[in-house]
């Protein structure tokens, strides 16, 4: 299938590339300064705190902030709005799933050290007592440990019960047990060592496996387990195939489909002998993930969700199987509920403030969040018009148009080529996002950059609606360094992939001369042509200066503040 033409990747690798040491250094919108790396220049210490802040926010020579310290707002300190009440802060809406509390970081010193090496700042890495974490009920790395860490499946702290802590009788018992197990292994023909036996039964996967079912099968000896495999596989395979055929498309839809498939997989999972669910589940899930990647390159939203799941798994290695299973399923449900569903609702309510009577709103392609926002605005009674801009080859805007028209919203539909003409009467542009990068750039459906640039030129505000789980630590400067290539045949304008539109309207003279070739579209012979290649890029990059505001579930932020959100909350 065409998806084998995979992504072009940046030299550093895929999504999981660790970024520049201080994400802040990529963010600067004042080009005529030399010291713009951080928000405070190195003037006499920002003294703004009467309260004892244990460390001034020093900027070391490399320009990166000292990373072991939770970032506190000096505004907070200045006006005495801090700590005493932090611990008692009730009902932070971000408690619960998706935002594991930072205090739990104590047991994750390992992750802390890796994280602190460049990205994310965790509390409790030896900070002074006055530095209570900025939001005690608040979120820590829901995105999980960054980059390379996640591929090892979170911090795997082996924790055999320490023999020193057991009484003599308990030790005796343990030894007896181990002897019995060893005897059983030997009689079954496996190597005597427990580790090696486990390896034989569950060959470790190095990630990509061309035949997922095979590796899954070897993990699960036993007939009834195979039924479970079939069922689990079918959901993941199902999801993967739907994604590959673009039946499920859009960052949110793909992420939810992935998580649902994984939830089913976890529910149906049977633990193999000699290991526990939480220890083995990562190895089990990896081939599923690889399969999805082969269907379609991983979306940032999916990647962040999977990273979160692995983080949760890594945190709970000690739980008994059924508890672990229930916990992971709950975590998945909470993630979908908090970071996607509820986030969309909050975004809608915030976005409603920015839509007034008489607005002419332009939107591009189809974003589920934008659709929700526009429908909610209309339901609220605001009188506005919508211009839906669409483009080949996917024509995703048609779906949005159908939904809006069905609700009664006055709509206009144009193709991207008409953007210069319609932009004159527009007074707001609302866009969706596949991801927001750390340099504030918007990574979204191909064509978005043109729309944003066009609006910016006429000083029309560009509003982007994006949930925080789509924020990425990546930095990208242009659309080529990382993108996804779609099926080039989609660009050929013939009967088969025109979704029911009329075939190419060739001028009769052209048709006459081209003959049979023209009946299938002018480009249909492109493969035979030596010098002709078709390029179907799916995404593009919009620079941060074209975006006025980003509406997220944490509020309205300028797009240059993406790294702040990542640093403080994720």
């Amino acid at each position: 299938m065409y998806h084998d033409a995979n992504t072009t990747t940046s030299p550093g690798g895929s999504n999981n590339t660790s970024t520049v040491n201080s994400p802040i250094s990529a963010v600067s919108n004042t080009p005529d300064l030399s010291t713009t790396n951080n928000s405070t220049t190195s003037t006499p210490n920002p003294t703004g705190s009467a309260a004892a802040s244990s460390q001034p926010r020093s900027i070391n020579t490399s320009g990166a902030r000292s990373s072991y310290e939770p970032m506190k707002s000096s505004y907070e300190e200045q006006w005495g709005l801090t700590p005493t009440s932090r611990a008692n802060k009730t009902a932070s809406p971000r408690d619960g799933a998706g935002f594991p509390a930072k205090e739990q970081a104590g047991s994750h010193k390992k992750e802390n050290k890796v994280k602190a090496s460049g990205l994310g700042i965790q509390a409790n890495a030896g900070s002074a007592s006055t530095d209570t974490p900025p939001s005690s009920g608040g979120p820590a790395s829901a995105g999980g440990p960054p980059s390379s860490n996640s591929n090892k499946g979170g911090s795997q702290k082996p924790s055999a019960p320490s023999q020193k802590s057991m009484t003599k009788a308990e030790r005796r018992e343990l030894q007896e047990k181990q002897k019995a197990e060893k005897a059983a292994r030997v009689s079954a023909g496996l190597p005597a060592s427990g580790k090696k036996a486990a390896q034989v039964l569950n060959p470790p996967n190095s990630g990509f496996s061309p035949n997922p079912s095979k590796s899954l099968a070897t993990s699960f000896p036993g007939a009834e387990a195979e039924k479970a495999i079939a069922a689990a596989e079918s959901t993941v395979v199902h999801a993967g195939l739907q994604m590959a055929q673009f039946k499920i498309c859009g960052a949110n839809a793909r992420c939810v489909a992935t998580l649902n498939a994984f939830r089913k997989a976890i529910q149906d999972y049977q633990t193999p002998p000699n290991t526990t669910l939480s220890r083995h589940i990562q190895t089990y899930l990896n081939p599923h993930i690889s399969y999805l990647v082969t269907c379609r390159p991983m979306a940032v939203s999916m990647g962040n969700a999977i990273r979160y799941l692995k983080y949760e798994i890594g945190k709970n290695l000690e739980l008994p199987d059924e508890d672990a299973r229930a916990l992971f399923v709950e975590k998945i449900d909470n993630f979908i509920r908090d970071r996607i569903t509820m986030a969309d609702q909050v975004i809608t309510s915030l976005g409603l403030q920015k839509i007034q009577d008489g607005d002419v709103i332009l939107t591009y392609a189809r974003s589920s969040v934008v659709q929700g926002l526009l429908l909610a605005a209309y339901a609220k009674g605001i009188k506005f018009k919508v211009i839906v801009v669409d483009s080949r080859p996917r024509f995703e805007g048609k779906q949005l148009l159908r939904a809006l028209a069905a609700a009664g919203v006055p709509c206009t539909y144009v193709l991207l080529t008409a953007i210069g003409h319609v932009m004159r009467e527009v007074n707001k542009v609302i866009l969706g996002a596949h991801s927001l990068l750390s340099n504030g750039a918007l990574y979204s459906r191909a064509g978005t950059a043109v729309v944003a640039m066009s609006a910016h030129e006429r000083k029309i505000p560009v509003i982007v609606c994006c949930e925080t789980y789509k924020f990425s630590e990546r930095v990208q400067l242009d659309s080529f360094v990382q993108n996804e290539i779609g099926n080039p045949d989609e660009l050929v304008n013939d009967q088969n992939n025109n979704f029911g539109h009329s075939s190419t309207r060739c001028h009769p003279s052209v048709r006459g001369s081209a003959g049979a070739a023209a009946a299938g579209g002018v480009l249909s012979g492109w493969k035979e042509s030596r010098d002709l290649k078709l390029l179907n890029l799916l995404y593009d990059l919009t620079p941060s200066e074209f975006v006025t505001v980003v509406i997220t579930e944490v509020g309205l932020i300028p797009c240059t503040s993406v790294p702040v959100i990542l640093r403080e909350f994720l």
Partner: protein
Amino acid sequence: MSKDFDVVANYKSLLLNSPELSMPVAAIQSLVELIKHSNATTMSEFMLSINVASQLLKSSVRNSISLSAGCDLFLRFVTRNSQDVAEFEAWKATLIVRGQSFVEKADACRYKIADLGVPFIKDGSTILIHAHSRVVSLLLQKAAENHKRFKVFVTESSQTHGGIRSAKMLRAAGIPTTIILDAAVGYVIDKVDMVLVGAEGVVENGGLINQIGSYQMAIVAKAANKPFYAVAESYKFVRLFPLNQYDLPTYNADTLSFQELNVDYDSNNTDENGQLVSSSAAPASALSQSALHMKTSEDQASQGSNPLVDYTPPNYITLLFTDLGVLTPSGVSDELIKLYL
């Protein structure tokens, strides 16, 4: 509830008695006074009374962005400090003490800012400032005290005569000052080395809300490649995110609206264009007449077909001098995010 304590009257008298006090600080002081006089016996009654008083203050002033910012900050301060209330009266007493120190700190902000901003004034430079801002004047006076030699152009700001007030203050400090027409900013920009303005409010993306004319100066400064610095105390940070000039709360349908054609120009109509010429009056007197109309309309709480403030987007601002330090516009948003979210 303390019905006998009129918070608005207290606020106004504070402003009258100390002209150096800024509006938000006076408002906060009035709220602290309210706490002192409060007869509330329960938390909820107390919080309610403070909220009501704050609303009263906000609605009593026409241009209330900085005042709103100050009130909101104080309310948040009270809320944060009300988490662990053991005994109501004792807590009220501590709150009064803390509130008082809050006011003192707020008042002291501009001295901190002046210290931070002085290094940016280079010897021998020429500075362009806008109308009258106490913080800016203080900063320049401090620079003069530090034996820096510089000259100042100040825009007249004809409606409020702020330029004249500024010029008086600066000349008294020995700084050579010239008043220029508001319309002459473009003319003079190539003679200046930097532009310095105060602030009514600083919004979430680091943009600036200030007296009308600031946006113009920012655009001219950017076109002429001169740095544009804004000076703002941190209690002026507001939770607003305007998409453009007309997304401000001070904007309403009447602002810069076109009047009916057959309206009687002789009566008190605040038209913006100089065509207030009645059939008989000469243009000059009509203009001064319109100025008068403008003035009287300012006293009324609701009128205003001409805006008093405008919004400067963050990409025009080079740096903001605040008591939290010298920040870039995106740094302001970082601070606010850390605070609010």
